[in-house]
């Protein structure tokens, strides 16, 4: 059985001044998988997310989503195609409550920009409340996003992305900035939510425990290329990867 290729990057190249972030990156994301991207700091992992969501335009190469070229599209178009993004630093509407953040996302997704109906009366409200349940943040539904601790904000950020009902979710270090005691708890919640919603996910990660435990496949991004990809146990046992990326 061959899985559908959701996202297909070919020959991506981009440099910032003298820094080469990508120099011929080829990477496929298969439907249903949880792909981790690891690599040294500054290797260009976040740049990949920026290119895949249209925030940056590569100097060479193409990105296709479900066979359709998306390289030159803007973030809002790519979002509409079905790619959502969660950020390393949560990007929320801090003056709005948590449920309002999700409702705004739902309104953006449905294109329901009616002028005379209250945001709180949107038909998606109960659906958004179950999404809060799914990521275990129902208790803070009516708190302002700006008042929440970082760990909760991360979950809200991911819930906002899931409110868009994406086929592919790109996450940038979903557990960075979270106390290490909470990391596994947050990832458990997150992975369960992704599986329940059948969302394919890519996450950039530094923590090898996270990769081993949660990824189906891992790709190593180093020196502007994907050096190796495969099941975590295999890749993380590779001597070159151990030396250059993990640092042992």
């Amino acid at each position: 059985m061959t899985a559908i290729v959701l996202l297909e990057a070919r020959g991506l190249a981009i440099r910032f001044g003298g820094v080469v972030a990508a120099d011929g990156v080829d990477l496929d994301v298969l439907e249903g998988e949880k792909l981790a991207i690891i690599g040294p700091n500054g290797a260009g992992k976040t740049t990949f997310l920026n290119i895949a969501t249209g925030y940056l335009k590569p100097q060479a190469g193409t990105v296709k989503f479900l066979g359709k070229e998306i390289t030159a599209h803007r973030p809002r178009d790519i979002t509409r195609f079905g790619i959502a993004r969660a950020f390393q630093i949560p990007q929320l509407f801090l003056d709005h409550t948590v449920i309002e953040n999700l409702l705004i996302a739902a309104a953006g997704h449905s294109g329901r920009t009616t002028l005379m109906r209250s945001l709180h009366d949107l038909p998606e409200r109960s659906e958004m409340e179950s999404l809060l349940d799914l990521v275990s943040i129902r208790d803070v539904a009516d708190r302002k996003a700006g008042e929440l601790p970082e760990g909760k904000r991360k979950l809200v950020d991911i819930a906002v992305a899931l409110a868009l009902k994406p086929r592919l979710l790109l996450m940038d270090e979903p557990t960075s900035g979270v106390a290490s005691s909470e990391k596994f708890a947050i990832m458990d919640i997150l992975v369960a939510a992704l599986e329940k919603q059948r969302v394919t996910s890519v996450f950039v990660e530094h923590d090898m425990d996270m990769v081993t435990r949660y990824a189906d496949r891992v790709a190593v991004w180093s020196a502007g290329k994907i050096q190796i990809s495969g099941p975590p146990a295999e890749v993380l046992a590779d001597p070159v990867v151990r030396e250059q990326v993990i640092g042992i």
Partner: protein
Amino acid sequence: MAGRSSALTWTLAAVVVAAGVIPILIPSMATLVVLILAKGIVVLGIIILLQAGQVSFGHAMFFAAGAYTAGFWGKYLGVGDLVVYLVVGTVFATILGLLVGLFVVRYREIFFGMLNLAFSMVLWSLLEKMFHLTNGADGMRVPRPTVFGMAFSPENFQYVLLYLTLTIAIVATFVVQRFLESPTGNMLRAIKSNETRLEYLGVSARRILLIGYVISAALGGIGGVLVAVAQQIATPEFAYWTKSGEFVFIAILGGVGNAMGAFAGSAVFELVRFYASAQLANSWQLILGVVLIAIILFAPNGLIGLWKRQRAARDES
């Protein structure tokens, strides 16, 4: 919660009754109350844009567009009807708002503010220089219009204008408050807090800002028609940057978090101007300046914020 919202309803009712009754007891106040309400309607538009964190220093252009609709009608088509002025003035301001808006919503903050100012000054100089069309700096007289086809004596007309303005103000406040609570209104606030995330929700921030901008231009046009009719004249000063500044001033004075702030600010502004200019002919701006500094220092959420804070303190004790 219920106690507070009913208190708000009663306060609103009291304000509406006061606006409607005081001019009957003191007829000389009728025009002043019309000015307060009409400018409040314009300021509602400023408050909409402030939700997105954008300040327009050129909204007087839409105010002037409404006012000159009445002026042109009087000069070229004879005495018209107030309702027609309102409809045509609003449509005209809306179209102007759409055209200017398509340019300015690409910019933010100081660039947004200054570009608006530039557009309004272009309109001001056109009104001033195209003498043969607009009577230049003398302005255009706005003869007393009919209302729904009926002609009124000057005494009766001022009350007709007052109650019509009051009705429009109530409807406009309700509509703007609903709009601000709608998904689009919330997206407008989201532009202020995180435009990047908004784009990553598949939403065009420019389109949202344009919707807000066009609504605010329409409100500017309505206010312009009403003020020109109340003062029976439209002059280029209506489009001048100090007029735009006045609207922003009133918005900050009243408080930008709530549609009611527009009218609270407008009432204080016009009353201070009315009495201060009677007492201190040339230095009433000084008094307004002191009032604004006091508001910014002691009540950054404006008069409405001050009122809410007092209520909250009373509820707790």
